[in-house]
């Protein structure tokens, strides 16, 4: 879904997600759209951002699309292979990772999120992947960016399962819980960028063609309007779109 026919929602999401990556970031990335966003950033404005994969891969520079972090295509160009204890332990828990770029099933008003299971309409629970390294990354990295498609049911006051802590949990700050890092600083969707700060969430920007009110209506958590108002997310450039379409995701696995 996209409000602009020149790009898909997935393409817009990858581009908006990529803008959250700063040059020099050391980033651990999850499967799917987070991969796309990180790789796009590396090819454009953040050439010295370095990627890590919890499977034990240092600084890959893949040149073709992959089916996930366990797909050897995603490891191409890596400078070193190692263990989970080196990536989630030394790099993440050891405080050397500035950014976690992750997917989520559900996000709460403080940026805590769920990758474990969702509740169906009949009250039954449907299980997904679980934490993997997601909890470790959100507990220990400098800042967290969540990349996911925008659906109202993905924003909830109370999560079905709190896999990963955000800026606070149950009224307790990260510092009080014993956690380093800022926690979630942004949720990037195919419609908007929601910024998270110490006071909660704000509608930072909506993507071209979206109206803030429509996004707010589909985002059932408290959302402030930032100082200066909600902006429009920069539109994808031709260069960004070309990278996505020609190199990163030519088959549209993630961005179609």
């Amino acid at each position: 879904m996209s409000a602009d026919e020149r790009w898909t929602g997935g393409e817009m999401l990858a581009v908006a997600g990529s803008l959250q990556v700063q040059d020099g970031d050391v980033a651990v990335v999850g499967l799917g759209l987070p991969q796309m966003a990180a790789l796009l950033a590396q090819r454009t404005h953040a050439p010295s951002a370095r990627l890590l994969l919890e499977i034990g891969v240092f600084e890959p520079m893949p040149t073709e699309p992959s089916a996930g972090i366990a797909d050897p295509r995603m490891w191409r160009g890596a400078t070193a292979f190692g263990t989970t204890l080196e990536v989630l332990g030394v790099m993440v828990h050891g405080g050397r990772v500035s950014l976690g770029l992750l997917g989520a099933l559900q996000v709460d008003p403080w940026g805590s999120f769920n990758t474990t299971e969702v509740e169906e309409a009949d009250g039954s629970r449907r299980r997904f992947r679980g934490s993997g390294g997601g909890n470790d990354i959100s507990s220990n990295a400098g800042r967290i960016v969540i990349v996911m498609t925008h659906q109202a049911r993905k924003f909830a006051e109370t999560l079905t399962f709190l896999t990963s802590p955000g800026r606070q949990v149950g009224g307790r700050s990260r510092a009080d819980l014993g956690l380093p890092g800022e926690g979630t600083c942004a949720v990037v969707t195919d419609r908007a960028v929601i910024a998270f700060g110490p006071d909660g969430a704000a509608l930072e920007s909506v993507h071209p063609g979206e109206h803030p009110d429509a996004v707010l209506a589909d985002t059932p958590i408290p959302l402030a309007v930032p100082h200066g108002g909600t902006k429009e997310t920069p539109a994808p450039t031709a260069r960004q779109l070309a990278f996505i379409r020609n190199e990163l995701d030519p088959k549209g696995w993630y961005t179609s």
Partner: protein
Amino acid sequence: MSTRPDRVVSLHELAAGIPDGSHVALAGFAITRNAVAFAHELIRAGTVGLSVTQVFGGIETDLLVAGGAVDRLTYASGSLDRFGLLHAVNRALQTGRLELSEYSGLALALRLHAGGLGLPFVTTRSMLGSDLLAPLVAAGQVKQIESPFDGAPCLALPPLRPDFSVIHVDVADRAGNAVVDGPLWSIPETARASKVVLLVSEEIVDVGELDPSRVTIPGSLVHAVTHVPRGGHPTAVYGRYDYDAGHLRSYVAAASAGAEEHDAYLDRFVRGVSTFDEYLALAAA
């Protein structure tokens, strides 16, 4: 002159050595380097009541759960990457047929690390504030403590020592010294933690043919090794073969359709053959 042990056995012997009710650690990761040949053989052996530990669950665990071999699962996550979820695992968890202990990836790797080194316990900040914590605390698998040095809140986790681990490696010598190429995720920790380490290897060579600097799992830790080329199919083995996307898609189609359809897959591809070579031929057909 001193002698080197010969630890080579058949896949049948390797699987037959695992009693019902054992705690078995597996070390595949989603669609990479799963001990699929071993999982097939264990299903054919009719082994039941297993407790399975796998940090990042893959198809090997999904197969064993679908085959009714597993009562209890300890993991941090599971999927088949873009191909889909672990449907047998998720179904068994949703129906309560499978008992679950769920950790963060690092926390579970640290429990295995502590098991390998015989550490009294390990500590971490991961999982603080998350919903992973309460069930683990209730089960006595995690304690909330404070650092005796600076009073910081943290978690203590006890060592984990599975009875067996089964690991798919690239090359092993006859004494069980084994090379794993590519990323290693929790493979070393899984091997070191286990009381009995069993290897399934793409290649077997004589002792002395491996560069000792390249050995990932020293034979000193290994009890038996078996030779199964392409034994990881349909998962990828780095530098040797790709995952079989078509087979993974048909697996997920069967697994996601329901327990009966998943069982039909097992009837055809696992119980319907008697060796992994027969399965490979069938899968290639």
